[in-house]
């Protein structure tokens, strides 16, 4: 599998994603600067976390206009994979690749900690190496991860089995106490209709080595590489 990690001005998890895929998983990665209109043919595009353009105005709202997004669109239309992590997820929402919007966390403050996720769809390219209902320990780090969508969209997401992850307890149960940001129905990650685009707030690249407390994030990379 070949991967391109897009670097926006203000991206700050770009090198972390590079490290997890390239150095830990042994899968080749190249960086693509946001001003590039073309990038090499790859299997996976990563929109990494960070504060693209300082997240001024709204998170992800300026990055969607970067020249590189045209190529990301073409890449996705060809059926190849895109994962947006944290700010990357926010950009995917702003760019209309995924439905819904982000609100500020219910605490109104930034939150960085390990949370538990439940795999809700084990059929997608990103999750096929997991069991449905599997609980993963993966950290979050964001100020605006409170996923919101209208009722019609929510129904569509549910009916089409497009909710990839929910926030849960260590035992896999949902509840307000385990939802770190107030997101609708505890949603932590969603898929597009075709199932080749995943947006998620938690950071799998921070949970890909045992020295970093958890290796549960590797299941996503392994699914993609299979």
């Amino acid at each position, binding site marked *: 599998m070949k991967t391109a990690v897009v670097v926006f001005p*203000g991206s700050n998890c770009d090198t*972390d994603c590079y*490290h997890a895929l390239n150095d830990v998983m042994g899968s080749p990665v190249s960086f693509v600067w946001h001003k590039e209109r073309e990038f090499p043919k790859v299997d996976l595009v990563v929109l990494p976390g960070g*504060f693209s353009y*300082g997240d001024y105005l709204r998170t992800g709202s300026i990055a969607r206009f970067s020249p590189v997004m045209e190529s990301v669109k073409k890449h996705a239309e060809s059926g190849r994979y895109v994962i947006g992590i944290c700010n990357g997820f926010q950009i995917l929402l702003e760019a209309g690749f995924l439905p819904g919007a982000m609100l500020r966390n219910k605490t109104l*403050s*930034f939150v960085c900690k390990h949370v538990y996720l439940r795999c809700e769809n084990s059929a997608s390219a990103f999750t096929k190496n997991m069991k449905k209902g599997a609980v993963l320990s993966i*950290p979050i*780090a964001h100020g605006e991860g409170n996923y919101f969508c209208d009722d019609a969209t929510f129904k569509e997401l549910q009916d089409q089995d497009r909710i990839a992850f929910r926030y849960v307890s260590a035992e896999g149960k949902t509840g307000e106490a385990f939802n770190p940001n107030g997101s609708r129905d505890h949603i932590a990650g969603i898929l597009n209709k075709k199932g080749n685009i995943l947006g998620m707030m938690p950071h799998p690249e921070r949970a890909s080595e045992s020295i*970093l407390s958890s290796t549960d994030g590797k299941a996503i990379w392994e699914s993609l590489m299979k």
Partner: protein
Amino acid sequence: MTMTDADTKITPEVIAAHGVTETEYRSIVKILGREPNLTELGIFSVMWSEHCSYKNSKPILKQFPTTGSKILVKAGEENAGIVDIGDGLAVCFKIESHNHPSAVEPFQGAATGVGGILRDIFTMGSRPILLMNSLRFGKLENATTKRLFKGVVAGISHYGNCIGIPTVGGEVYFDESYEGNPLVNALALGIIKKDEIVKGKATGTGNPVYYVGAATGRDGLGGAAFASRELTEESHEDRPAVQVGDPFLEKLLMEACLELIKTDALVGMQDMGAAGLSCSTCETASRGSSGIEIDLQKVPRRETGMVPYELMLSESQERMLIIAKKGKEKEVERIFEKWDLHAVKIGEVQDGHLMRVKDGPELVAEIPAKALADEGPVYKREEKKPAYLEKAQRLDLAAVKEPKDFTAVLKKLLGHPSIASKAWVWEQYDHMVRTDTVFYPGHDAAVVRIKGTQRGIAVSTDCNSLYCYLDPYEGGKIAVAEAARNVAATGAVPLAITNCLNFGNPMKSEVFWTFHQAVQGMIDACKALKTPVTGGNVSFYNESPAGAIQPTPTVGMVGLLENIETRIPSHFQNDGDLIFLLGETKNEIGASHYLMIEHGLKQGLPPRLDLEKETALQELLLESARAGLLESCHDLSEGGLAVALAECCFNPKRNFGAVLDQLNLIPQAAGLRQDALYFGESQSRAIVSVTSDNKEAIIRAAQNHRVPVYQIGKVGGQKLVIGDKIEVDAAECAKVYRETIPGSMAS
């Protein structure tokens, strides 16, 4: 009268308004051979302020040990010191205060404190890899404290998270002496290849001088001077002296500067921090023994109508001065253009020794660079032992009744915001970005790995200001020793320190005495522990109308783990492990948090620290870590044995219980009080846990190092049992410990 008008006549009032004394003014006239104009007077006033010149502290700071086999760049030579860590790598680190801005505008004050310290690090060519901070506030129950605390944490979070440097630890204390004058000390550490160190030098006549980064506005006018006076009721009127930070811009600036050092176009680099353009131009010229000339017409600005005085004194953030090689201008401009940043040639390096500032054709300032940067006034301040000490140090032990309910005392201590869990704070900081953070905040020291090597760096910040209030010498000594102990507890060898010396007004002889004493204590500890000082910052004038803060010489200690696999966590790891207490427990409750919290007394002498015993303990910890003997290690500090044991049990992954049923092994001959045994803060002690297989080995190792060792109990169960006086559910204690600060902040 506007102070910025170039035609303003230099009257005694104008001079006094700049904080320049009559003697200083006479020196200025002598240096120039004429009267200064207003712009020149402004430049002198900021460069000769305490903040930039250390005029009151220099004679004492000079006595810090600054050399060592691993020191590559010494304190004071550059923006930050640099220490060799092997494998061709070095670390560059520094701590700095942003106290006054944070008192007036907590969010931006703290945010720009982070931005400023980061620039000091990447100015040297090193990539920042971690941030820490040391914070002090008034009592948490006060609404003002809550506002300041919340604002400062949000400001640090805003800046550090956005720029993508993890905030991996620090400390927070609450005490009434910081009411109205909080302390915000920020530390940054960067990593650099030894052969890529960049100096802040302007050399090579004809080399271009570039201004890069943000445009200049009127923000932060005279901030260095603002930092060099006491806070008053009117200080909120100084709000224009607080700068506004833009972490996104700093991220771009950092990436561009780090890209530039990989080219051969760079001669020197210097950030524009305190005293902005004035400081960066005269310091680079002074270090390079050159002259420098700049034209203010070329300086990018964000406001119209700015005059030379304002341009030279503005402390707008996210700006750097770059000295490039002549002929390589295109390369510099290409890199900054890539990052959408200003890069404007504003002048060049010249022969001679003058800093010349032009405004188009007009010369507006001409001053010998060295006179500004290195030849400021130096004062030997008067010292007098403070009158309060004699009474405060006296403690009649007989009058202090031992508590009836030790369990209640333990809970009270765990629920004091200075001791309670700070997760509410550090969960607002991205402490994981860069995926190098191996020990999260909440450990004795933060530990980060260095990718591509076996190595790790441990960092701790420490200062018990109650000790410094009651015995500044011993307090200064302990600040260094405890920081080293925290680093050694993780298995890392303490290498060097940076310090941030927060004190009151140095013109007051009693304040100055405490400053000198504290520094002397630090010097003695640094020498004994072989941890030289690589730099730091002095913050005087920390006084509010209520008086001076407790002396707070914060220490940032950096240590090296040659093999990260030998790191030791602070919390218990396995049920059934044996618990050992290392070190000697004495009848010491003076200056303890127990005495302050339970008995309401800030009184007595702090515990005595024996540097030989401290060294022995730390060598024992390091040897045991390398030999793989330890499962966990935690030093004893505020709250003594009982609090330390509870903290060992509060592993974030799950709570442990523990039973200490062999406290009787600790020698109790010399009339040791029970409260001293449970809550006293005798120094040079640690709690370690080991598997039963390593029992003999740890005892032997301790004996070899002549460190007293007592097997006092075992990990396991649901309860915390300490001797015959404390028995309580571990989960109940953990709840108190974890919910104190969130509870206070929610109310």
